[in-house]
């Protein structure tokens, strides 16, 4: 241990005296800060948007409730396009409620799926397809390039900075001739390697795993709560384990005793394979094994089904606008209301569309879940995939949480339609009490056991290969040619 401490102290002094550490650390800190800043800004934008949406929903609901009371007390004339007593209007866009997924306090750490999947949906009694693909359209440029966030820095850039500090940590000693001087002392090669890697790992992991968490704790006080200790610690563990793989690779590559230039090529080659090639190939393989239904087919089917439904309900949809001229007809009488033919027609048409497309939409979800299972199973082929999945899951922006949200939206949509369906078909007017009985979306967080299980699996998928690489490195070190 004493020798290891000496090596660590010496290595730290050497690195501090060299410009490389300062350059790499400065660059990395800059990237981490920028990624985190982007994440915080994006999370703030989303929180702000969600806050405004919910505020508008509450304000609108209060206004509709007040209007309903005035209409029932004959204080106001019903508006044919905004009548709170009309179940077809309230179940449709006029009285709809939002289903939303809360922004996790850790969302700043990774954008994940929040780039392409909205955090809230305006749920109506219309076809699911009418609102599910119609909310929060992102800037296409952002969708194309992705956001520059901390998970991008960790997954893509962190390994390159590890290489910058470690590609020649042993080969340079041999090339400069200092290795013979070192090993002529009572110092073993594994101790030397351990000391050199430890210093480099501490230097970079400090920036990668500790600084973002400290910054997050300062900027987002809610992240400091006890319930977030576990996800934050797990996040740091993922970063350390991911860094560990690349440091272990640097050890293994150096232990083969090739030149520094060869080491650099081998490391960058491994990075290209693990971070760029394997994820793309896995994506292609998953798309072949579990192909998602065609979006074009969905659009075409939607048009056809909508056209059929329009024809079926043509009579209702062609109803005249008598209510515009005589709104008094829309006032409830003895709890009953005349649901306008056009509104009823639209509802029935949307219901038809939903029923007809249910199978296709379910197929999308089934295939997506199947694809996700394949990625989870074979993602271990690339530490980048494992880490990205782990970091986004812990930040609350992973695909699994979004699919969990999707299920809750489906359930809420069904409850919403079930509530209004009999009222629309039987012409039952909405009462003030119905405002309290109308389904309200309540977010249920993912099962912590599932999340924790995913974290443990992910960490094992990183730590086992790292241990394997270290074992290869140690085995090769025993045969290392010092001269």
């Amino acid at each position, binding site marked *: 241990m*004493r*020798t290891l401490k*000496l*090596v660590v102290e*010496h290595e730290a*002094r*050497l690195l501090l*005296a*060299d410009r490389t550490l300062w350059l790499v650390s400065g660059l990395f800190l800059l990237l981490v800060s920028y990624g985190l800043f982007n994440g915080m800004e994006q999370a703030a934008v989303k929180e702000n948007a969600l806050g405004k949406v919910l505020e508008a929903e509450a304000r609108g609901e209060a206004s509709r409730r007040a209007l309903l009371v005035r209409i029932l007390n004959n204080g106001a004339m019903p508006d044919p396009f905004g009548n709170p007593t009309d179940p077809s209007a309230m179940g449709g866009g006029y009285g709809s409620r939002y289903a939303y997924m809360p922004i996790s306090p850790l969302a700043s750490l990774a954008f994940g799926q929040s780039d392409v999947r909205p955090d809230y949906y305006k749920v109506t009694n219309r076809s699911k397809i009418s609102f599910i693909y119609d909310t929060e359209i992102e800037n296409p440029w952002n969708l194309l390039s992705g956001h520059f966030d901390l998970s991008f820095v960790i997954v893509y850039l962190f390994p390159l900075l590890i290489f910058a500090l470690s590609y020649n940590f042993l080969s340079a000693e041999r090339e*400069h*001739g*200092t290795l*013979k*001087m*070192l*090993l*002529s*002392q*009572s*110092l*073993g090669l594994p101790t030397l390697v351990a000391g050199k890697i430890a210093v480099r790992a501490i230097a970079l992991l400090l920036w990668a795993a500790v600084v973002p968490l400290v910054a997050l704790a300062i900027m987002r006080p809610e992240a400091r709560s006890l319930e977030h200790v576990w996800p934050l610690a797990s996040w740091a563990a993922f970063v350390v384990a991911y860094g560990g793989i690349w440091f272990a690779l640097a050890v293994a590559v150096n232990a083969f005793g090739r030149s520094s230039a060869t080491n650099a090529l081998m490391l960058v080659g491994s990075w290209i394979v693990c971070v760029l090639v394997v994820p793309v190939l896995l994506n292609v393989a998953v798309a072949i094994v579990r192909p998602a239904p065609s979006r074009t087919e969905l659009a075409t089917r939607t048009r056809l089904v909508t056209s059929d439904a329009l024809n079926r309900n043509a009579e209702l949809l062609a109803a005249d606008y008598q209510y515009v001229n005589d709104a008094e007809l829309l006032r409830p009488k003895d709890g009953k209301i005349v649901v306008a033919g056009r509104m009823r027609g639209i509802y029935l048409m949307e219901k038809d569309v939903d029923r007809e497309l249910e199978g296709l939409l379910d197929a999308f979800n089934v295939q997506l879940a199947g694809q996700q299972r394949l990625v989870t199973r074979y993602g271990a082929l690339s530490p980048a995939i494992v880490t990205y999945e782990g970091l986004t899951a812990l930040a609350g922006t992973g695909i699994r949480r979004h699919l969990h949200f999707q299920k809750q939206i489906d359930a809420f949509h069904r409850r919403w339609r079930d509530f209004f369906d009999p009222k629309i078909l039987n012409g039952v007017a909405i009462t003030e009490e119905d405002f309290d009985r109308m389904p309200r979306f309540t977010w249920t967080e993912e099962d912590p056991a599932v999340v924790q299980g995913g974290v443990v699996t992910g960490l094992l998928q990183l730590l086992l290969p790292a241990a394997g690489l270290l074992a290869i490195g140690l085995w090769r070190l025993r045969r290392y040619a*010092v*001269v």
Partner: protein
Amino acid sequence: MLEAKHLSKHFGATAALDDVNLRVDPGEIYCLLGANGAGKTTLINVFLNFLDPTEGEARINGLDVTQHAIETKRHVAYIPEQVMLYGVLSGLENLRYFAALATGRHAPRAHLLVLLSDVGLDEAAALRRVSTYSKGMRQKVGIAIAMAKRTRALLLDEPTSGLDPKAANEFSQLLRRAKDDGVAVLTTTHDLFHAKQTGTRIGIMKRGRIVADLSSEALSHTDLEALYLQHMQG
């Protein structure tokens, strides 16, 4: 103290060492002479466990170097032909690190400065970055590192290479003092004069074999030169 028994090292079909038998006892300075590629440095590298022998064994203080790699290095100090150090550190800092690795603790600064002064590096030079040193100055730091280790055996691979005549002479005196203190020294050299002046025994290596093992006292400079040339030409 240093012992080679039927030591062979082959690189493919080439025998760098071929059945070498050698013993250097405490208080002896064994100078190995030989042309380039004769196997002198290979022998040193085997003693340092930088190379595994193909056959035979190398022992330091009675321990096989392949089986007790770390332990045997505690008993031996090494000076290579070209002492390579950390250029971004000063001579003093280099000595401090290598001496600490050898002894397991940091020596006092004053003691290290005395060691450097003994080999001809004053304090101003000792505090300069090694990247500004000449080869001779680096060699002096290497000698100081070996001295700091205070071992019972020295392995020297052409240690005076790059030293000016005065420094080489001072180094010879250091070696003689070490011999008087009972240190066993195995040194390789091309310098016949240095070998005769410093060594107690002289070996001549050719194609991996020790072809002559002579007592320095029984030889004159001329005899040694003639003998050496005879072996090289034969």
